[in-house]
């Protein structure tokens, strides 16, 4: 576990995820579909703070986001796995900084999250037309990947500074 989660205010920035999901600003949408704010916040968090903290943050975010939607489809499992995976990537190898790498990781994360939701909704019978699911999946992955270099690199920079001071 890293030191980031011991800074209360860093964890509190996670509150922006449900708030942005609720507000869903129209100018950040592609074809009416909003980005996955959970992926955009969890990626830098896990990269800086490690797999354990990433998995816990993923679970917390997933629980809050599940509460914001009707139905039983859950985002928790995929967000936990993504937090753990991104934490491992951050611990092994060189620190990830390039926009392309961030965008690619966010794209993979959004695709995994979208696919899991699509399968769950399909099994529950809440997605009678799979085509609608593919449309949402592609649009959300694209807009998340496009925003990742902007949002994630700023958060990464700030949190690495914090870790540098405290660590």
């Amino acid at each position, binding site marked *: 576990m890293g030191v980031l989660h011991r800074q209360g205010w860093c964890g509190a920035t996670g509150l922006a995820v449900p708030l942005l999901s609720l507000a869903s600003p129209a100018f950040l949408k592609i074809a*009416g579909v909003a980005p996955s704010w959970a992926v955009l916040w969890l990626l830098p968090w896990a990269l800086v703070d490690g797999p354990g903290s990433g998995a816990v943050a993923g679970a917390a975010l997933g629980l809050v986001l599940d509460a914001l939607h*009707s139905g039983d*489809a859950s985002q928790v499992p995929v967000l936990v796995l993504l937090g753990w995976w991104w934490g491992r990537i951050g611990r092994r190898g060189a620190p990830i900084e390039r926009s392309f790498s961030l965008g690619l990781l966010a794209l993979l994360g959004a695709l995994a999250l979208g696919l899991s939701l699509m399968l769950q909704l399909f099994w529950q019978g809440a997605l*009678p037309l799979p085509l*609608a699911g593919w449309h*949402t999946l592609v649009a*959300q992955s694209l807009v998340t990947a496009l925003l990742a270099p902007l949002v994630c690199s700023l958060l990464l920079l700030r949190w690495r500074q914090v870790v540098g001071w405290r660590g």
Partner: protein
Amino acid sequence: MPGRWFRVPTLHKIAAAWPWWLLVAALLGVRLSKGAFLLDAYALLSRPFWPGSAQSEWLRSGQRLSDQARLVELERDNQRLRQMLQLDRAGQTLVSAPVISREPAGWWQQLELGKGRRDGIAAGDAVLAPGGLLGRVASTTPTTARVVLLTDGSSRIGVWVGRTQQHALLIGLGTARPRLVFLEKDPGVRPGDVVTTSPASTLLPPNLTIGVVQTLDEQAVPAPEGLVQLSAPVDAVDWVQVVTR
């Protein structure tokens, strides 16, 4: 001079009076044609003074007023008859609520409203917007309510096509247009027919506009299916009305 009055006028005198003959012929023409030329001439002359757009606007506004008054009267009458038939739930009221979060596209199609249990809103209540039915309340908190839109994949309501008096099922697909599934083999519905809530419905308020049949697949098995273009614009609605029980 005897016989002077009976003398036949000479021919050249008759011919000299030709303008008078012409006048008589014209008058006879007017009489025989029942005034055709005269009316045409009058129409031509009075054309600048015919009723213009101002008059038609007055008439239209009068018509609108009369329609509105009739609508109110008929609704009141309808309400009374439904109460006599005990089809209506007593004490229905409309609560206006602001839309505080909107997600018309994506994995879920839902709205969050800024009023909840404290204002009498409960799960299952119908949510209306200018244009017609938007969806139903799925869950409430003391100050908010979550509305599942008709387009959501989990939305299923019974509807009514008034022109052919057919019941059907409206199933959300997760896209902008829900699917209309008929219960009978030959519903006789065609694109352009208006879809409303069932007049016999007790779950939803009766006779609310939902949308218009856009396409129809007659070959679908086991019964014909169609797509419905909803009439209430979800993206533009800031305030909605909840029909509470």
